[in-house]
């Protein structure tokens, strides 16, 4: 191949991966663009919530202060917590991962770039909606965990804004989880066995999986909560058989794993930064992997430690106390592995390393107070005091903010191609570190002296005044440090030289990217043989740049990346990924309209938003997914021919559906949990005098759903066997059976006169029925979609990814429908 051919290849890659110019830049979906937007937006929300915190500190600086009213104060602390948790801590994980993961794994882009863009637009719309509420005095005001009955019976529209805004953002998180898990498992460079992949990707995969089990219970809780607020269904109303504790369970089943969802990806950044500045491989790679996995699991056994004072039996407290202590074991292993790496290496002094060490110091204090409050009797004393405020800030700022700051400093040259100032970095670190400790260390004492959290003022004789004043001073020093860092990031650097390539002499693949980074990320995809390829393979960069790796061209004019096998990263497929389009943004605005307008009960605009969303989604699917390629396979170089179209369990789309439905199933099981929760708290359940829905209707519905599932599966098999007309007929039959199942399922509670506002029992039965009916409706939409694809020859016996994916959806739905029928129809016969 001549030099001219090589130059032509590069030009073609440039053209295919070019960022859209001008205002069409906003339609970009490439991970390098969306990742930056995502990070910038998350930091903007962080600054906003930080400003709220400063107002809180000013109000508390002196006793009997009247800077803000009690009502405003309630909104301030609620919004501070909500924005920091939901609009900064979780999204920054997704943002950073979207930006750096592909380069780290040796992929040109993530498998579903348009999904990332959709997630980003959902995040920004929901975030702006929730945040701006405070300027209209309508912000949520019942604390970031929104406990009923305060939030259901006293809050104004703020509680609805909180619920709907956040449900929308949870959608974005689950989208990111799907994207990142499939990214880690299926788009690693060839040869990157699972024991060689960067630790960061292990953490991303684990956290992605945690999101699937943690966020759905909250979505289920949100659904019940909104049904109570909107339609007066008494899930949390004790006078009508409800129980506010149910909300606490659903919230904290999400809320505690969420702490680890925030913490693990941040500590993952340390796992990348520490080896670079110790100039040696990480010590105990396999130990870190096992402790990350162990933490991921154990973190789900902790949620009740937020509920130690709700009067649960002491045996329940005992189980959760024990698990809360146990989680310190894997967390400790990770910290020791980092310390060991530092001790065995030759440490290069640098600003990111300063932030890493500061993070460890602060987090260890937070971890130790965590072990203290995991002991139930101590928690009884410290509960809802400033001790808890101190503890949680030490955990989150040491475990998340400082590592993220280290990551920002470390990855800035990678993302922006420029270096940050060392002086400003050192100043910002010491201001932040000193300010943080001055602000939060005294709070331990303030709490032990009895100051409750969330009070808007206090009297002078309590003896909390000088401690609070100190905290206020510290918080402003902290904020100053943060502003120095923010200024360093945004100050114009046009006249400064580009950062050198691999500016920190790191060993992982993302640093092989040229500076400034081209939109196609790498000229060719290398084959990986070690954990630190840049250190171990001296020829790596030259080989990548000269196009000697795989997939060095884009002859056909498509954006392409490699799909490899899960364990050993054997090349399996050339995946054509999404190109820039407005559709994800339009879909997000449509869905956003649904959530926002329904908050204000404006049903016509809500319906219009739903139509926009569905039309955009359908166009997106129809034109951009499972496109039949012009040829079967492609030569990717090195004598390797890979297929361009794969369906079924080998394909990325099938995995995305599997992961999404796992999350969906978790939400459904949370509703089932709600049903049995009500059973445990009532001596008679179903309550006497309320009959329904009977067993006949649910049984018939289950049967019809079974038929719908069977016909969908038959359609897939018939289609694969080439019997296309029969396959289409089976789809039509499945559609009708599903419609019948939905109608019959609704007929059960309707015909037996179950009134959902009367008692929690009919309410939870109705909630389950609505859940299933909505899922059956989506299933019918999918059957119709496949029928249309088949009719327009976009789905054929050879190219059948669509029907594989919808059959998978139906596997989950038939299970949920059968279980619902058994529970609502069968359980009352037993009880």
């Amino acid at each position, binding site marked *: 191949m001549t030099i001219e051919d090589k130059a032509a290849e590069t030009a073609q890659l440039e053209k295919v991966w070019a960022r859209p110019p001008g205002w069409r830049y906003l339609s970009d979906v490439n991970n390098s663009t969306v990742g930056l937007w995502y990070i910038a937006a998350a930091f903007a929300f962080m600054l906003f919530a930080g400003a709220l915190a400063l107002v809180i500190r000013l109000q508390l600086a002196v006793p009997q202060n009247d800077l803000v009213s009690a009502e405003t104060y309630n909104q301030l602390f609620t919004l501070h917590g909500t924005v920091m948790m939901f609009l900064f801590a979780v999204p920054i994980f997704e943002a950073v991962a979207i930006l750096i993961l592909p380069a780290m794994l040796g992929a040109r882009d993530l498998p579903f770039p348009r999904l990332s863009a959709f997630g980003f637009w959902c995040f920004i719309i929901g975030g702006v909606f929730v945040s701006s509420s405070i300027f209209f005095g309508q912000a949520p005001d019942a604390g970031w965990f929104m406990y009923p009955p305060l939030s259901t019976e006293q809050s104004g529209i703020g509680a609805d804004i909180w619920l709907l805004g956040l449900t929308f953002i949870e959608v974005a998180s689950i989208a990111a989880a799907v994207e990142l898990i499939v990214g880690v498992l299926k788009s690693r460079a060839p040869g990157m066995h699972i024991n060689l992949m960067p630790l960061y990707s292990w953490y991303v995969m684990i956290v992605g999986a945690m999101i699937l089990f943690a966020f759905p219970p909250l979505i289920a809780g949100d659904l019940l909560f909104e049904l109570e607020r909107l339609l007066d269904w008494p899930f949390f109303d004790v006078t009508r058989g409800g129980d506010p504790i149910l909300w606490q369970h659903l919230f904290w089943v999400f809320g505690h794993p969420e702490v680890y969802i925030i913490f693990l990806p941040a500590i993952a950044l340390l796992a990348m930064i520490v080896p670079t500045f110790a100039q040696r491989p990480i010590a105990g790679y*396999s130990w870190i992997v096992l402790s990350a996995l162990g933490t991921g699991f154990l973190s789900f056994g902790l949620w009740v430690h937020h509920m130690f004072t709700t009067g649960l039996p002491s045996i329940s407290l*005992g189980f959760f106390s024990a698990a809360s202590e146990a989680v310190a074991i894997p967390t400790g292993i990770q910290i020791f592995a980092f310390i060991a790496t530092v001790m065995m290496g030759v440490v290069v002094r640098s600003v990111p390393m300063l932030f890493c060490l500061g993070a460890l110091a602060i987090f260890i204090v937070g971890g130790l107070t965590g072990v203290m409050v995991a002991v139930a009797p101590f928690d009884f004393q410290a509960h809802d005091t400033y001790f808890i405020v101190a503890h949680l800030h030490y955990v989150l700022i040491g475990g998340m903010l400082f590592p993220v700051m280290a990551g920002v400093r470390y990855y800035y040259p990678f993302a922006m191609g420029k270096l940050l100032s060392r002086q400003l970095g050192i100043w910002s670190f010491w201001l932040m570190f000193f300010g943080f400790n001055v602000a939060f260390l005294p709070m331990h004492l303030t709490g032990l002296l009895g100051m409750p959290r969330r009070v808007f003022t206090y009297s002078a004789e309590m003896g909390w005044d000088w401690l609070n004043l100190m905290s206020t001073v510290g918080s402003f020093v902290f904020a100053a440090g943060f502003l120095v860092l923010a200024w360093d990031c945004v100050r114009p650097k046009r006249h400064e030289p580009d950062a050198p390539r691999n500016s920190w002499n790191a060993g992982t693949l993302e640093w092989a990217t040229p500076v400034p980074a081209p939109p196609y990320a790498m000229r060719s995809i290398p084959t990986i043989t070690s954990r630190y390829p840049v250190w171990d393979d001296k020829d790596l960069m030259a080989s990548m740049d000269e196009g000697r790796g795989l997939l060095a061209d884009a002859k056909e004019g498509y954006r392409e990346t490699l799909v490899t096998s899960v364990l050993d990263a054997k090349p399996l497929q050339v995946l054509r990924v999404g190109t820039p389009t407005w559709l994800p943004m339009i879909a997000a605005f449509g869905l956003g309209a649904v959530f926002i307008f329904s908050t204000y009960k404006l049903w016509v605009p809500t319906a219009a938003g739903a139509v926009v969303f569905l039309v955009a989604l359908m166009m997106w699917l129809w034109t951009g997914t499972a496109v039949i390629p012009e040829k079967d396979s492609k030569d990717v170089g090195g004598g390797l021919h890979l297929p361009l179209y794969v369906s079924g369990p080998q394909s990325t789309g099938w995995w995305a559906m599997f992961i999404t439905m796992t999350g969906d199933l978790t939400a459904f099981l949370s509703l089932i949990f709600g049903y049995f929760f009500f059973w445990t708290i009532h001596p008679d359940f179903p309550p006497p005098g309320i009959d329904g829905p009977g067993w006949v209707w649910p049984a018939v519905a289950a049967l019809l759903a079974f038929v719908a599932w069977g016909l969908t599966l038959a359609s897939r098999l018939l289609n694969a066997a080439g019997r296309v007309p029969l396959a289409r007929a089976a789809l039509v039959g499945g559609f009708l059976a599903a419609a019948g199942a939905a109608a019959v399922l609704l007929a059960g509670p309707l015909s037996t006169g179950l009134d959902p506002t009367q008692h929690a029992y009919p309410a939870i039965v109705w909630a389950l029925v609505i859940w299933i009916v909505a899922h059956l409706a989506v299933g019918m939409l999918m059957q119709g979609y496949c029928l249309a694809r088949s009719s327009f020859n976009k789905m054929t016996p050879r190219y059948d990814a669509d029907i594989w994916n919808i059959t998978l959806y139906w596997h989950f739905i038939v299970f949920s429908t059968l279980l619902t029928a058994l529970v609502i129809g069968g359980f009352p016969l037993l009880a």
Partner: protein
Amino acid sequence: MTGKVTREVRRETGTGTDLWQVIFAPIVWALHFLFCYVYAAVYCEKAGRDASLDGPTTVIIGATVVALALIALSTVRLWRVRGRSLTDNDFEFDHNTPEERHRFLSHVALMLCLLSAVAVLYVAIPMLYLTSCR
């Protein structure tokens, strides 16, 4: 370094310990934990706060024995792998073959068995000390 020569096995791609086997022991922990919590919570809710925990203690001990037995099953299988890293006979596992990947995942799984067993025991401890549903 022990100087012991590690024999390289020609393992096919995709065989050996996989990710599901790695998370087997933590899943056992999760099921054991859920069972203990749900069982005790339902028992106390239905039997009242003065009820004695003698019966449930036996049940929880039984469940703990079952959970530990399941984890032991996985441990015995993984114990047979025992092979260390192909390159230096250590625990770094940074060789680029399917065999090394298998040994790496086996090591992670083995250590997770240990962690899960400890966590199962931790969870069972409160049951041995509490006598009533209060």
